[in-house]
């Protein structure tokens, strides 16, 4: 009798993650098309409209890239934390916390030089994100509490705090009962680069390379890899695995916090529930699809930004914007399945007993 078993491949194709993404994306387009056909829409029409409105002009491209900024930054943060094999599900909360920290600093300080002020505000956003993940980091390192649960739960807490603040102490009287904090001054808006593209995107490029450097080229990244591979090996090598996990979490949280700060200074200009529309969750998909590679996160994040913009504009022809989310989620699903088949093979084995 023969039986079939899964066996891990010795050598994995270098480009396996990329191919997996292509396969996943292809499957997602097919699934999306089927759903559109069920709704009696022509998928080609819908997709070409999405394409036109997301990358058809300088303005639409810049809209797409602006949307990509929080996905990329939060995704990079997730990938740094994953270097020690931990999962950050709390990017959504960290994005809000970044915006809250920014506003807190903004209403309590005043600096004449707007450039310096912007840097200070972005820095406080980064620190806000780190503070947000501080409790999950401490409980993980000291007591081994599962970080997936704690980071997820902080999302609800932080969003609760946000709602409390914008309905209470920070509520802008001029906002006509809409719960939001007061707008920040125009002088601290992030400047526009071209079209509508925020200079936040340049920060995003910079941080992509920073994340790549930290993960692949630095001593800290090396120590994170060893600690992520085996805690016992880390101890043997004189590396404190717990310390690496702690700092990886703080840095990763900071990346997401920075995303919230950029979102505030370039898009919403005030603290409101609109700071993030699930960016922190979509960022998990982005990071997972790319196998936690910073450059990949940058590219897939940009694509997902375009998909989100495309999704929101097709509502005008009576198609739900959820089609974009279905495509994003199905891409992840397809890519993960494809990655599995790139890593394993099914081999036939004669009965051995």
């Amino acid at each position, binding site marked *: 009798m023969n039986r079939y078993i899964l066996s891990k491949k*010795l*050598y*994995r194709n*270098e480009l396996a993650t990329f191919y997996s993404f292509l396969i996943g994306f292809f499957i997602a387009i097919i699934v999306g098309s089927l759903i559109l056909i069920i709704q009696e829409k022509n998928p080609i029409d819908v997709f070409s409209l999405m394409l036109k409105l997301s990358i058809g002009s300088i303005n639409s491209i810049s809209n797409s890239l602006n949307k990509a900024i929080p996905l990329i930054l939060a995704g990079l943060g997730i990938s740094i934390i994953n270097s020690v094999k931990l999962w950050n599900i709390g990017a959504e909360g960290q994005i809000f916390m970044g915006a809250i920290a920014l506003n807190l600093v903004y209403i309590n300080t005043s600096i004449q030089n707007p450039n310096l002020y912007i840097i200070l505000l972005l820095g406080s956003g980064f620190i806000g994100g780190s503070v947000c993940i501080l409790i999950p980091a401490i409980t993980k390192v000291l007591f081994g509490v599962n970080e997936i649960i704690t980071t997820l739960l902080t999302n609800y807490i932080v969003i609760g705090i946000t709602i409390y603040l914008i309905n209470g102490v920070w509520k802008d009287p001029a906002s006509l009962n809409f719960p939001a904090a007061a707008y920040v001054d125009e002088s601290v808006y992030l400047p526009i680069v071209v079209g509508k593209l925020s200079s936040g995107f340049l920060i995003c490029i910079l941080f992509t390379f920073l994340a790549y450097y930290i993960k692949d*080229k*630095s*001593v*800290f*990244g*090396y120590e994170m*890899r*060893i600690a*992520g*591979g*085996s805690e*016992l*090996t*880390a*101890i*043997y*090598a*004189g590396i404190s695995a717990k310390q690496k996990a702690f700092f990886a979490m703080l840095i990763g949280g900071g990346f997401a916090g920075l995303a919230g700060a950029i979102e505030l200074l370039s898009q919403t200009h005030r603290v409101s529930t609109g700071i993030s529309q699930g960016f922190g969750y979509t960022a998990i998909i982005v990071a997972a699809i790319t196998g936690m590679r910073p450059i990949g996160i940058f590219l897939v994040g940009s694509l997902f930004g375009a998909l989100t913009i495309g999704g929101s504009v097709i509502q005008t022809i009576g198609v739900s914007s959820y089609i974009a989310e279905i495509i994003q989620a199905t891409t992840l699903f397809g890519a993960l399945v494809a990655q599995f088949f790139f890593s394993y093979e099914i081999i036939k084995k004669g009965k051995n*007993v």
Partner: protein
Amino acid sequence: MNSPILEVKNISKTFGNIKALDQVNFFLEKGVIHGLLGENGAGKSSLMNVLSGIYIPEEGTIRIKNTDIEKMNPDIASSLGIGMVHQEFRLIESFTIKDNLTLSKANIFSDNFEEAYEKYSDIFALNAHYETRINELSVGEKQKVEIMKLIFKNSDIMLLDEPTAVLTPQETSQLKNSLEQLSQEDEKTIVLITHKLKEIKEFTEKIFVMKNGKMVARSLDTKNVDDNELIELMMGEIKTSIFEKNNAKGPVKLETKNISLSNDDGQVLLNDISLSIKSGEILGIAGVSGNGQVELANVICGIERSFEGKVLINAKDVSLKGVRSRKKLNLSYIPENRLGVGLAPGVSVLDNSAIKEYFKSSYGPHLSKGKMVNYLSDLINQFSIKAPDEKAEISTLSGGNMQKLLMGRELISNPDVIVAAQPTRGLDVSAVDSIHKLIINQRDNDSAILLISEDLDELFKLSDRILVLYEGKVMKEVEIENASIDSIGLAMAGINE
């Protein structure tokens, strides 16, 4: 003699090309405590797994209670009254004692549980209420529950795999009384697997000895058997291939003074260990695994920090120093656990090759990949390692190449002190040979080497001096010229002439 309650004939079982059991004959007499003696890998556990239906042998017959068993499986074994206590407990930690005891469908005390619990907790001297959760019990108490579990599911053939390994001496003598009571009052048939000669002589009435998958002695009368005879059966002949031992020795490079260590449960792991190794000298540490070897290595290398006593490297007291600063004094450690401690699984060959000296490839926070690659190619050339690709995951290397990479990484700096634990375990003959040459070569380059091994052939071949660890104590220390395999074997089993 009555007809045996269990009898197996000509059982064979192979794994890959290793014969774990080779034509084994074995039998048990009702109500008797049997001992099964043998080194690691002699086939004791394989035989027990065959009896409990976990392994299916390729050939041989099994006859239990006068019935021939055609096809064995764990269910049948259990219904025939065979029960086994494994080295790792199979208890549900969050359940109570009662839940664990009554879990089996074969539970025979469902109506009179309390009465039975009272009787057996008395026999085992278990002072815990049956509503206590398992995770509140000590290791020794858990083991009592584990053995009681067999009684509650009506096993009358009880197989105990190294039950004393986790026990304190007091608990061990308590266990002896409990087992005696069970065999006398309940007529339980018991098999005790152990390495410890002293225990097998105290506990048992009949002794079986295994060696290399074969049963080399059957049903010896414990009363009439001699220690030396047992050791000879267990260890067999030693090969006389020995490296030259006229190596020059220099000043003392590694010294430990009165090292003691206990774990959180208060079990003593190391007890007052003092040793010293000169440059150009190999000190072999003999002992059955789990007698303190790993702990000793961890104390010397700075991984285990909560010990008492002193560690000196090149006459410098490093007792309070961490791993990194000891490495800077040119100490190398080849840990017993190759993949998982010495090498990080899931991480590339390149990253793994740099674990010892990656800080030498760094400029501040920057890690120079070029330097790491050069270092790796030095290792590959100097130690003839076959590695497919620097980016490949470490576990794609063969065991021998993994060990060569690990050894090379630790030896390329010509260390002053080397701690090598089980450096050749699981390797094929040619890999063993090249690892041995590396160690001797390092000795001739004036390293002080602490060699931990369970393989006596290896220890005799390489060491200048042998020290035997037993239950965390130095049982014996002897120059190689005066060492005999018998006396080392006896000391490993806890007997000092």
